[in-house]
């Protein structure tokens, strides 16, 4: 299959150019070579996952999508990875053009979105822990807790059957909760479950029955505004079905053609041998470092510098005798400190596009983080300025300085020294807070850990490894703080 350079894809997100430039301008029939932005989890094998041996995004849905793009005359698609629950908001916000992620066709979705013809026919199955025997049909789900992606079709099925839904970020996480006994049941696509069982060799969970009799159909989904793209994709799928391409791809992954109704029993015995955690860590070390270099570190650096500038301006405004300046500053500080960072990120990334302000993921993340840092830094800087003895300002006044000059040359340099320890705390918090940006489609080091975890189920070593990365970055920063304090501390008041 085609190799795909994910470094370039990440850079694309980083610069945010692809997202801005790929807005549909014209589409006069087929073959216009356009770049279509495809949303997908990348953590749902065998449909969409990152192959650890070469770091390529691959899977059944990815290969189908590639074939569709080629058949429709588009350029190679631009894949954007995110959790399932973030895919539909991204589609609504115009950040992606299509979702290729085993999206099941149901009436609610059909009312809001445009589907192509199905390329997967599957059925839902009920999955429990190995030692559970009394949950075999949807009727048994009443009152139980099911682990599901919140916005997936299977979550709706479980809910309709009377189960309480525990929201998770993908099937691998759901399976882990089931093994740990934190939930009772999972409803999911039979193919995904069979693949999980085959690839992990797990006998901790099992399929106990069908979730209803209905065959579910999965298709590519476009927003209402992309009628033309949908039509092109739909026609491409028809031709790919007719010439046997879909059947070939399906055979490769499932040992059966799932792209037609009433497929044969699937056989997902794969060559993906369970790997030791050592191998998993070895494979993920570089992607995580790259996630740190391209995601975590620049996000932290840009947001911290911008946040400090915002904080300084807001602190000065807050101390101004003019209410016109101090009141908005107070409000801003209170707003930032009184709302969760995650909510702020979502407002910037998913909220603002609804009023016409669509920022690329990296920029939106930088803005949200900068404003967040700014709110906290403002109070730290203000407290530091106030703790510079009043006599310093008086002494500056008596040597003839104007207020601003005294602030800049006498008060602020001393306040800076006082502010270093608390601001360093903010910086360390920021490093760790950047792990939240994976929800706004930015690939950082934690996102890479999640990708690897979904594929290998090696949660403990992988997340410990991610923690180690963060710790190393924070440790280096603490050393820098110590040096800075020592340098500034050459004078004591």
């Amino acid at each position, binding site marked *: 299959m085609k190799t795909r350079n994910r470094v370039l894809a990440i850079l694309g997100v980083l610069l945010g150019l692809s997202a801005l430039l790929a807005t549909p301008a014209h589409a006069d029939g087929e073959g216009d070579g356009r770049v279509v932005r495809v949303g997908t989890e990348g953590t749902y094998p065998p449909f969409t996952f990152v192959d650890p041996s070469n770091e390529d995004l691959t899977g059944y849905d990815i290969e189908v999508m590639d074939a569709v793009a080629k058949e429709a005359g588009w350029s190679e698609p631009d894949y954007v990875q995110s959790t399932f629950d973030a895919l539909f908001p991204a589609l609504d916000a115009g950040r992606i053009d299509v979702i290729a992620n085993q999206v099941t066709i149901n009436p609610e979705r059909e009312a809001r979105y445009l589907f192509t013809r199905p390329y997967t026919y599957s059925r839902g199955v009920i999955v429990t822990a190995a030692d559970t025997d009394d949950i075999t049909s949807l009727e048994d789900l009443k009152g139980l807790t099911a682990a599901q992606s919140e916005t997936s079709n299977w979550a709706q099925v479980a809910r309709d059957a009377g189960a309480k839904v525990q929201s998770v970020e993908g099937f691998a996480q759901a399976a882990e909760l089931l093994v740990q006994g934190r939930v009772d049941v999972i409803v999911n696509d039979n193919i995904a479950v069979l693949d999980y069982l085959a690839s992990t060799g797990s006998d901790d969970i099992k399929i106990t029955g069908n979730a209803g009799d209905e065959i579910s159909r999965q298709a590519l989904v476009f927003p209402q505004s992309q009628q033309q793209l949908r039509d092109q994709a739909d026609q491409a799928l028809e031709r790919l079905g007719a010439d046997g391409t879909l059947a070939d791809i399906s055979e490769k992954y499932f040992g059966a053609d799932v792209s037609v109704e009433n497929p044969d029993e699937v056989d997902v015995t794969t060559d993906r041998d369970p790997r030791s955690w050592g191998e998993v860590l070895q494979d993920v070390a570089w992607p995580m470092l790259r996630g740190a270099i391209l995601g975590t570190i620049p996000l932290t650096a840009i947001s911290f510098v911008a946040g400090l500038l915002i904080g300084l301006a807001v602190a000065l405004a807050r101390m101004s005798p003019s209410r016109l300046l101090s009141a908005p500053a107070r409000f801003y500080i209170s707003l930032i400190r009184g709302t969760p960072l995650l909510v702020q990120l979502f407002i910037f990334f998913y909220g603002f596009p609804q009023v016409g302000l669509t920022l690329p993921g990296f920029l939106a993340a930088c803005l949200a983080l900068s404003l967040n840092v700014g709110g906290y830094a403002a109070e730290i800087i203000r407290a530091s300025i106030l703790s510079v003895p009043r006599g310093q300002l*008086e*002494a*500056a006044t*008596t*040597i*003839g300085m104007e207020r601003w000059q005294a602030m800049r040359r*006498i008060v602020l340099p001393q306040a800076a020294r006082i502010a270093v320890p608390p601001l360093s705390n903010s910086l360390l918090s920021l490093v760790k807070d950047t792990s939240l940006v994976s929800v706004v489609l930015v690939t950082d080091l934690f996102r890479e850990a999640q990708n690897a975890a979904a594929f290998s189920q090696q949660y403990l070593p992988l997340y410990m490894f991610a923690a180690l990365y963060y710790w190393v970055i924070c440790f280096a920063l603490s050393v820098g703080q110590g040096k800075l304090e020592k340098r500034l501390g*050459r004078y004591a008041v």
Partner: protein
Amino acid sequence: MSTPLIEVHGLAKSFGDTPVLRGVDFTAASGTATVLLGPSGSGKTTVLRSMNVLETPDAGLVRIGDASVDFGELPGDKATRRREIRALRSRSGMVFQSHHLFPHKTVLGNLIEGPVQVQGRPEDEAVADARQLLEQVGLAGREDARPADLSGGQQQRVGIARALALKPDVVLLDEPTSALDPELVGEVLGVVRDLSQQGWTMVIVTHEVRFARDVCDQVLFLDGGVVAERGSAEVLTDPQHERTQQFLRRVLEAR
């Protein structure tokens, strides 16, 4: 007699409902040392700070040389008043009780900050002057020290040099020895005595009566926000007012 260098007239100031100054008047000729004495709360420090507009009086006039501000008169516009205050401030240098040196700058940096940043003088010239001033206050060779590395007496001498570096017409000293350990008082008073002999015009708030007797040309004894007694240094040996007598007795007995 020529016009006095300093003129303070009808100075009044309240902090909230508490009147601190209730009409203070005095003049001082160029080259003289004026000592302000009085019990705490008498308003002497407020007089000094008003001369530099660190406190804004409610009423009264302060003039040094050709710069004056009439605080009783409402300013025509704020920019004019700011210009007047800036001009008045530029005529004096201030020495604080607890020096208020800039801790993030070296001794030399403290001295040239005003001349270079505010007065816009060339740095090499300001540095040369600063070195000379440091020699004068007995701190030659300590140019690169930080204030925190100096003793209290040395810090205060740098504070005096910083005030002189502005080349002011008048030096204002606000209890320059009150925050010092007793054994360090002498070195600072020695410097002030030298200044007096070199002909600097000074206004000094102090409790050092014997020192005041040595250097001053004029004594103002403040009590309850007015000048209760004034005169030459003899006031300190032969006070006429009962309040002055009480005060001097108490201060001298404490020594």
